[in-house]
């Protein structure tokens, strides 16, 4: 599982930008919303996209889910419970790398 999580982390860190908003609260929200929606897409669950804000998260989630499915064949062999566990571990790891373990000293500046 750890190796699989690292593969997904590597993809996000190399190809995406959404995880690097400039403040910790934005990063937490981006990670939560986009990775939750990605999990829902991968598990064929309904996804909230009625507001512009949700739609914007959904757009990144659609592209991420497509990339995961096309690049990582092992994903197709996982059931929904396993995918949910994988995505939770992915979110925990992303939160660590971009928020709680981050060395970026600007993350907690209260102003934009």
């Amino acid at each position, binding site marked *: 599982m750890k190796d699989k999580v690292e593969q997904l982390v590597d993809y996000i*860190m*190399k*190809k995406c*930008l*959404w995880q*690097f*908003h*400039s*403040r910790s609260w*934005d990063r937490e929200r981006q990670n939560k919303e986009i990775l939750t929606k990605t999990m829902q897409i991968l598990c064929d669950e309904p996804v909230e*996209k*009625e*507001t*512009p*804000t949700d*739609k*914007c998260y*959904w*757009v*990144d989630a*659609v*592209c991420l889910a497509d990339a995961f499915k096309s690049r990582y064949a092992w994903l197709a062999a996982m059931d929904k419970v396993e995918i949910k566990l994988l995505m939770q571990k992915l979110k925990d790891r992303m939160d*660590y*790398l*971009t928020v709680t*373990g*981050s*060395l*970026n*000293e*600007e993350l907690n500046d209260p102003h*934009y």
Partner: protein
Amino acid sequence: MPYHEFECSKCIPERKKHAVIKGPGEDLTSALPLGYLNTIPGSISERGCAYCGAKHVIGTPMKDVIHMSHGPVGCTYDTWQTKRYISDNDNFQLKYTYATDMKEKHVIFGAEKLLKQNIIEAFKAFPNIKRMTLYQTCASALIGDDINAIAQEVMDEMPEVDIFVCNSPGFGGPSQSGGHHKINIAWINQKVGNVEPKITSDYVINYVGEYNIQGDQEVMIDYFKRMGIQVLSTFTGNGSYDDLRAMHRAHLNVLECARSAEYICNELRVRYGTPRLDIDGFGFGPLSDSLRKVGLFFGIEDRAQAIIDEETARWKPELDWYKERLQGKKVCLWPGGSKLWHWAHVIHDEMGVEVVSVYTKFGHQGDMEKGISRCEEGALAIDDPNELEGIEAMETLKPDIIFTGKRPGEVAKKLRVPYLNAHAYHNGPWKGYEGWVRFARDIYNAIYSPIHQLAFVDISKDEIATDTKFVTQKILSDGNVSEEVKSSNELREYTGKYDNLTTIREKTYPEYPLQKKLSVV
């Protein structure tokens, strides 16, 4: 922490925390240099000032505006025409530069009267221009001139004009990035929401953090127009002052350079609820993903896909011709802020080059997080390097080429390392599918220039061969290329025009009549 200490900077021990090497197994929690701090005394920085960051980088690309500096003439002269942000109104903003020409007597007696005279004189000299941006400098800020009050006086007397005041003197931040920040916040505070735009499409965006370097913005706007999207404003390349006052009416902020313009996107999200979508306009893969995302947001992804398919089919064989010849070439990616992460992964993926170092003069730690994540292991990441560190890095890493600004670029030439201008480009635009091929061509031309080969010969001591034959770029580049690639019928060199913008400017676009307001907006 895998900090890297330069030999030349051992006498400035504080510099050690500004460079790291991304080693095996390192991640951002262990490999990240300090950033966006005041330059350490003793280190000769290559940064610009906060005034330059506000005026030169972000304010001046606005095309229908008199850009006036309140200060000594040198401030405006030194920020004039050094970056190629062209416009489709005959480059008005590049042709002229304006300063109040403060002198010592004004420092003693004040320069507000002088400022007012200059503002009125400039408007009279250009009667068709009714908009002005006014920039504070160190000199006028230190004597306390109230430029807001003078601007308001003029607007009261000349109601047909509008003036934006940017209070970002040179000392207002560690680098030009402080000025980016100040002008973002000043613009949304003073001007956004003051104009109601005409909405002509169901799909309306602001294109933010795009400066139309050699036409980049026009290339991207072409794609958006083909999708039936109304680009309400561009912040700020080829952008119009009044369009930018209407930013609050867009459905989506599409953000390109987050370093210089994420502040206004964040504030637009907080104040008006407009979401922020970060995109990459460079490289076939990232650009395709970006167009697809914008299409998905509006439910018109089929239109995006049609553009992706058409452009990829047209230009990919040309990109691949260069990729075959650039494989393994070592690059120092030393731009300003955002291009280190816009390019770090995609020049490796799509052009085959190896990024051996990234640096940023004014980027923040957030930019380094993106850049270090995207480059391969072993890369040396440097924050705010001084010239000696740049030289030491080039001598150690032995890059085949560097992408940087003109100041370190000229130094590189003296070390016989070819450079491309990452800020103003060589033969841009470099954005878009065709633009990416033009960038590859510029890299190829720089690395394989026969003239450049001569630079390796030191006529003061080397034996000059007299029996060598004339060589061409292709002789130099094709030495290690397989016969299969050389004889390929699919791959080809760039076949576009020298000027690829005139065609875009003359284009007509499909009509997508306004049908309804977006239900989600």
